[in-house]
């Protein structure tokens, strides 16, 4: 019996260690803001009523801001005198990158670390990132035979002629677009807006992301990888507490998938 208890205790410790690794608490760091209760560390002065009111105010404002940003991005009038791709790039940079930063710094007057722009906790980052790539590879193995998926996932033809152009494309285009998604959905939506909800914010931001894609562009196999990565990328950002890690994990996934398709083509 004692032996069994001892084994159970060891098992609990291992599970706790794993959980601590997954949850990012292994290093013993505690980020009160990330936990969602600002008053926990706010000058050490307990002001429950004031803090709760401020959190509610921030929640309301951020909710309004997020939906206004996505709404404007979706309903932005198209200019007939400018190329549509250029318009999308300009609008995405402004609404997904510039405005969240301004909102954080000027409206909320909070540091950029609130958006996850901070040093990452690399152990959970690598764990969740590795899981993301591994699971993604398995899924890719099953999706590749699907004709719709293969035909929908297209790479620019010029990439097939030069690996240098492929690298430039991956770094500049894929890396840039991944940064926009990470900052808005993982930084603004998941951490700044829904951070107080705990791990469920991961699922929520992923749902918002997928929903926005479905509304704006319609569902197709073309966005399968993007939707998949939004969930794991959220996990990486949540547990590593930094969008740097999720950006890197996201980019790595895209790079590998593109590489597979490049080889297949």
């Amino acid at each position: 019996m004692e032996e069994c208890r001892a084994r159970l205790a060891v098992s609990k410790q291992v599970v706790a260690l794993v959980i601590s690794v997954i949850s990012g608490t292994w290093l013993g760091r505690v980020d009160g803001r990330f936990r969602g209760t600002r008053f926990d560390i706010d000058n050490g002065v307990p002001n429950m009523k004031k803090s709760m009111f401020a959190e509610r105010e921030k929640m309301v404002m951020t909710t309004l801001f997020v939906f206004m940003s996505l709404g404007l991005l979706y309903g932005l009038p198209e200019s007939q005198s400018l190329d549509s791709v250029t318009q999308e790039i300009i609008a995405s940079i402004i609404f997904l990158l510039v405005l969240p930063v301004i909102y954080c710094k000027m409206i909320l007057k909070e540091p950029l670390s609130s958006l996850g722009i901070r040093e990452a906790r690399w152990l959970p980052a690598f764990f969740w990132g590795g899981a993301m790539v591994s699971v993604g590879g398995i899924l890719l193995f099953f999706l590749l035979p699907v004709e719709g998926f293969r035909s929908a996932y297209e790479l620019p033809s010029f990439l097939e002629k030069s690996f240098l152009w492929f690298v430039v494309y991956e770094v500049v285009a894929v890396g840039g677009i991944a940064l926009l998604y990470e900052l808005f959905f993982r930084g603004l939506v998941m951490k700044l807006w829904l951070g107080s909800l705990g791990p469920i914010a991961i699922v929520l931001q992923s749902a918002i992301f997928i929903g926005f894609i479905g509304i704006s562009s319609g569902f197709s196999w073309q966005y399968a990888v993007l939707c998949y990565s939004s969930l794991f990328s959220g996990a990486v950002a949540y547990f590593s507490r930094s969008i740097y890690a999720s950006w890197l994990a996201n980019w790595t996934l895209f790079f590998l998938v593109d590489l597979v398709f490049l080889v297949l083509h």
Partner: protein
Amino acid sequence: MREVPLVGISRRYIAVIGLIGMLLAPFSSAQAASVPSVGKVASKLEKRYNINGDSVRDVMQGFNVNSSKKTTPEVSVFFSPSDPKSGEKITARAMPIYFSNPSESLYYTWYLKRKDCNAARCDYNGDGAYNSKDWRIEAASILVQNGYDSVDPGTSYIVDDDNDGYKARFGGDNKEGKADYCAVYDPRSGDVYELVDSGSSVSFSCPAGLSATCLEGETQINPETSVVTFGGGGLDIFGDPAPNSGGGTITPFSETPPDCNVGGCSSVGAPVCSGGSVPTCTSGTPCCVADPVTATVCAAPLNLCSATTSGSIKDLCTHVFAQPRGGLVSGDGAFGAGEESFWKTNPRDPSTANNGQKDEATVVGLGMDEFSWTYFSGDEVGVAVEGTSMIPTKHDDSSSYVMWAFPKNKCHPSLVGGSTDQYVQTIKGYQVTFPTANMDPNDCISHNLVNPAEGGQSSNLSIQLSVSPGSLTNDETSDKSGDIVTVQAAIDNASRENGSLHYDWIIDISDNPRFTIPRNITAAAINSELTTRTKGNDLGTLHFKMNIPAALLGPMSGGTGYIRFRLRAEESIEGGGIRKGNSEVIARFVSTGKRIQAYLVDPVVVGPRTHVKLGANMICNGSPLERTACQVIKNEVIGLKIDGAGLRDFSWQINQKPLICNRVGVSPDCSDTEQGNIVFFPVTGKTGDSYEVTVTAVNTATDQAVTMSRLFYVIDPYAQIVSSDTDVAWKKLLGFYRDVLGTAAVNCPAGLCPNYSEEALQTFAGSVVVLKAEYLPRFIASHPGLHTEWRVDGEVVEQSATDTISFPIRKYGGASYDISFQAIILQTDLMRRALYDVWDISPLDSTESNFTGKMQVEVQDATMAAGDQKGIKKYYALISSYVPETFLFTFRVLLLGFLALFVTSFFGSLVSTPRFSRRR
């Protein structure tokens, strides 16, 4: 006049009497019983020896004037080239005839007269004039020097030891040991005059102002008015009984002897004073006339003359050689330093001309039948050939006359102002009269100049005309799609470029190839623009459109006719003169209003096979251009039909090969018994190939063959996108060009013509543009196998009507739409099967044809033209027009973003108000 002894006359009479006695002696014994009749004797002689009196009379009449028919020496000069140009070397070759000498023994005295020479420049002999002596000197210098330059170092005329003298003989180099009798010939009278001064004085008793001459006329032969009956009994024309062997009538003729007192005579020579008192003529009658050259009537009879003689005869025989100045003589056997210096020959070279003979022999022209010199415009040249003629003298020796031949045969006493005379010598006991002339043959030279460039020695232009195409079809309808005839003139002996010749074309038509009643349509053709111009230079090729209207054709309308192209060409020769040439070519044409009609065909199943039949859609009939050259596409089957009314016996050909259509193998429209007016052919050629289809039929009314043809060109199908409403979408103006040629089809104000794009349209924002696809060939639009697709900016757009799309312009000014039209033509399966069954064309070869059309529609702001802003607003407008659209778009998005932040912040401030706080 020489004394004639009386003893000679008595002997002549005795001889005549004796001869008559000998003739009559044999008959005296035979006719002893009667007195012989001279007429009977003569008649018997005629019968015995078959002597025809008319023949004898004719021979004797010719014999009487035989002395005037002499073959005197002549010379012809030929030039090479026949049309010399200034500064060009020219060679004159002399061809003498009727000399008894060989050509190399004759003396050729060449003379060259320069147009720009005068006494001041070309007086080579120093006599103060530029005359025939200088002409001869120049020619002889050229011959003897033969390019030798006396200025060459080493040439010195101090010493002359080359022994190059030559002694010339009268009558030629080979004339030796014979007496020298020089003579000239009067071609009018036929007299040969010895060049002597007889020293006699002859005077004829003509009234004042008249001179003596010999006039002669011709006998006039006139038919009688009466008719003489002969045969069938009765008397003949001589009054003798005619044998009874048939009969008839003849019209006798009467001879009217010439009467120079009335007229019709001409001078044939000068009379001589026979016996010192009786004027006699060798031919004709002595007469006194005012001018022997023009006289036709004897003004006064000439009955008396008087002659006195000094008894001495002076020989006037002389050479016509070129003579140097200073009293030196050519041909005297001495060619010293003086002559060497004058002729500028090489004193150390006996043959400066390197012709194998001595210099002096060259100077006198021994055997020099060729003369070459550098020609300049206006040069005249000639040659006097001295030699022994073939006319023997009457002197009692072996002599023949020494005579001269000139190019124009002009050398007689009356020409050069010489006088004629005579002397009498007793030859073999008879008094022989010798006509003489006192003249210098040197004076004949100036009358015998020839211009190498003058007409006569050059041949006419040789012109060859060719017409193409061979079989012509005239279109008398307003389509004007008749053949274009090209008539090419080839002139192979023109000395100039064909472009510098003058051409004069004449065009005739006729209903028969002999052009018995030709109709000149030259002027009408120019007026009807069937051809451009027919006269002028550079018209070696004439283009003529066989679109002769029915009014000009007359009875040839709808039938067959002949067209004749005549060309008269001229070229001017350097130095004067014109060469001409004429030629003509005749071509047959068919004029008809009928034409071969082309149709699309439909497949039809006949038992186990698939055939074709004529469709309902006629193609290539929309414009004269289409009717002239029908454009077709590959794998299409074309049906051909011609209106068979009034025609029979059809024969079709395609590219000179038979085109057959029968019911069994091709079409139910055809017949198995005879070739009809319908045929079919598949288009199997490549792009650019052509088919010439020809049908020949017989006109049932005229029984004449009628031939018609039509061309088909294989092209790639093509689609052109055009705007249905040019007020809404118009062709983009690319710029302006100056219409120098005046051929622009558009309005060109001030000579500047707009140049519109065929690939770009312009429209205003907000308008609705309607675009239509036009096909080439046009029959594609109704092709059953045509499938099309429109795309606007890559998006498929449905057609609003057949081959038409309509779309609103939603973009702003500066933007554009890319319009693409894609079409595919695929023959139906049944047609592909017909291609295989009828023409054995595999379905693998009858594949589809793809073609596209593209157009760009540029959008303009409708307010672009309303730009009347002033001041600072205009400045802002100007700046904004240059701001990049990217910047403006970014600015607009940022404003929206800031608006979102403001709204969020404003809402946040509302949430944080005390009222809300209290409520909470």
